């Protein structure tokens, strides 16, 4: 790591950075208040599934926010970033209005900056390590600035491509086209490899396309990042299920030397309670895929989606928030979160919960579904809820919800969306003889290298973690790319 620290220090000591630091007294910097994200008003934005809630910072706002960054000698924010972006460097470039250089800095570390600027939980990562917190002040809005720089470049029409090594002719495959694989592909193409990304669906992007709704992450933003990768030379094969369409052996015969499995946690969990297979009860994956990937809410598409006056979404994570806010946009009069713990324990990002509340989402916290009841036609009509209270902390450190005996209520619903997490998709592990999987079905890898029990197979993201964030998945992809490069160089 000393090499990195040296490089960081060297860059910090460049004359422009030093001049910029001296251009404004520290007390003036810390006196600036943290910028507020510009948003479309709730009553306006809930009319459309594709209207992005956050509209980004103006140039003026971004430059002012960038001035808040103290350009610390030991930038702890970088430690909080799973892909170790040189955060002060890109922020200081924004301060001196060299937005293109800010974007280029981001791209040295992340293949999807416009995505990360929107969906990363910065409050738990880089911003959680910002020096401002020690002064009991709000951290620098690193996420907003990341988004600003990436958006600036995208809309400028002058998108740069990072430096790419001369092609080495070595073929590698990335399985799945979500953030983890894309991050891997971006790094490998820079190293000169011949990279192909295989995707089972008809659209590239994985969870960025089928999962996260456009009001949080517009498809155009994802497509622009995909275009960059394609321009860098990454090849994409859609409608291709590795292990089924062609086997790993077939691909090896075709010249592939190693693979990165980033196939995600594609199997939705259900609670296994009575009535869960009634019509009108579905997984968040199904609900969101119908709307996000298949555009089922549009009039001119063939895929149907159920509409209901009362939509209950079970769960407290980001996917639950995405589902319940989607239901509101599809016209639900009541869109309700049912969560077995309290607001404090909710795993969803604070911003998502804030937006949900603004949009009129109801929260039934400390309630847990125990049964779905049908109407005469056999469709779901009611959910029976067990009221809970918080007991002692459990293994996750959160207070465990315990049922309050006899406290049961029923509410009328038209649709229930189950968003209580996902399990690893067994399709790929089942095709790899000799691969080690955990009891939960995740692929076992070496933590440092992401290499599996089969030396030519690396893996990361949700297929290894079981369910995590976009940026952690991207961090795995980067780690795997560097380790695979070492492995193939020694071969």
């Amino acid at each position, binding site marked *: 790591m000393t090499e990195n620290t040296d490089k960081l220090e060297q860059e910090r000591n460049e004359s422009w950075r030093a001049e910029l630091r001296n251009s404004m007294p520290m007390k003036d910097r810390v006196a600036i208040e943290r910028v507020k994200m510009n948003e479309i008003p709730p009553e306006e934005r809930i009319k459309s599934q594709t209207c992005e809630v956050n509209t980004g910072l103006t140039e003026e706002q971004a430059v002012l926010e960038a001035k808040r960054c103290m350009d610390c000698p030991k930038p702890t924010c970088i430690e909080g970033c799973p892909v170790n972006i040189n955060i002060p460097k890109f922020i200081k470039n924004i301060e001196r209005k060299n937005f293109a250089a800010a974007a280029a800095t981001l791209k040295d570390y992340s293949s999807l900056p416009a995505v990360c600027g929107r969906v990363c939980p910065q409050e738990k990562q880089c911003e959680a390590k910002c020096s401002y917190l020690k002064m009991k002040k709000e951290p620098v809005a690193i996420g907003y600035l990341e988004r600003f720089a990436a958006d600036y470049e995208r809309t400028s029409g002058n998108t740069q491509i990072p430096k790419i090594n001369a092609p080495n002719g070595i073929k590698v495959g990335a399985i799945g086209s979500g953030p983890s694989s894309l991050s891997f592909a971006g790094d490998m193409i820079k190293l000169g490899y011949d990279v192909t990304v295989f995707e089972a669906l008809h659209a590239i992007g994985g969870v960025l396309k089928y999962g996260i709704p456009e009001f949080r992450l517009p498809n155009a933003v994802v497509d622009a990042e995909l275009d960059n990768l394609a321009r860098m030379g990454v090849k994409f094969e859609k409608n291709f*299920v590795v292990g089924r*369409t062609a086997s790993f052996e077939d691909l090896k015969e075709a010249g592939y030397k190693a693979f990165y499995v980033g196939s995600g946690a594609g*199997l939705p969990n*259900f609670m296994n309670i009575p009535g869960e*297979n009634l019509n009108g009860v579905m997984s968040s994956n199904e609900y969101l895929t119908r709307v996000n990937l298949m555009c089922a809410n549009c009039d001119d598409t063939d895929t149907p989606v*159920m509409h209901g006056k009362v939509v209950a979404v079970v769960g407290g994570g980001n996917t639950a928030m995405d589902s319940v806010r989607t239901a509101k946009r599809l016209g639900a009069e009541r869109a309700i979160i049912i969560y077995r713990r309290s607001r404090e324990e909710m795993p969803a990002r604070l911003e998502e919960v804030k937006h949900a509340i603004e949009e009129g989402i109801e929260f039934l916290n400390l309630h847990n579904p125990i049964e779905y009841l049908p109407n005469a036609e056999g469709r779901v009509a009611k959910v029976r809820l067990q009221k809970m209270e918080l007991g002692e902390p459990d293994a996750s450190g959160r207070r465990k919800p315990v049922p309050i005996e006899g406290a049961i209520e029923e509410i009328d619903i038209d649709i229930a969306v189950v968003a209580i997490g996902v399990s690893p998709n067994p399709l790929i592990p089942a095709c790899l003889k000799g691969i080690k999987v955990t009891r939960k079905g995740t692929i076992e890898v070496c933590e440092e290298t992401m290499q599996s029990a089969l030396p030519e197979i690396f893996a990361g993201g949700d297929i290894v973690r079981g369910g995590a964030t976009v940026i952690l998945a991207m961090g795995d992809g980067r780690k795997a790319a560097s380790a695979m490069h070492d492995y193939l160089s020694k071969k």
Partner: protein
Amino acid sequence: MNKIIEKQQLSETVFKFVVEAPLIAKSRKPGNFVILRIGEKGERIPLTIVDSDLEKGTITLIVQTVGATSAKLCKLNTGDFITDLVGPLGKATHVSKVGTLLAMGGGVGNAPLLPIVKAFKEAGNRVITVLAARNKDLIILEDEMRKYSDELIVMTDDGSSGRKGLVTDGAEEVIKREKIDECIAIGPAIMMKFAAMLTKKYNIPTQCSLNTIMVDGTGMCGACRVTVGGETKFTCVDGPEFDAHKIDFDELLKRLGAYKKEETEAKNH
């Protein structure tokens, strides 16, 4: 994009397509299916692979016009392209030498049944096939089935071909006549329900291949949930074939109509 090499009309509403898909042709096994989509606004629907030609790199699909997507597909002609085609998906049929197999096909269910009948015959089994439909015009793949069956019985509701009666009538006669080691029934859910009830009565192990609603077809969405032996299974990754005596057919029948309201609205557009 997959090119349509050949199109043939099998009945008023049923068409056969031979489609270019060299990788799938190579890797598919009996029982596997594909998911396809017609046009950028199209829906993803599952279809069983009926046959493949390794040399030509093609697969055969048979489709009945029931919804918007199947209607769009049936309007395509030789030389046209299918927008998206992915597979082979689902578990392959477990084919082994069991002795005598009784295969029951209903309507367009004959299409997924054909590769299984062929595989069991090639594995050295005696195969008796009972095909049924409402009338003579709706019986498809009769000649192909005959080729791979030791005996073929045709049943129609109106007696316009073969004998008058249901698939179960023909099957029960065979069961009473000789020892059947295994059954497979593929057709409309209601037909499979009664076929399962029949073979349960005689205690003959039976498989059914389910054609549920699916979106991705790779285990991601769970739209294809079915209760088998009291447990929830995903048809796309755990099936499509299940032990017929353990399938909750009443739930299946309800789930097949989950989007009836939305689909009727779509057709009225």
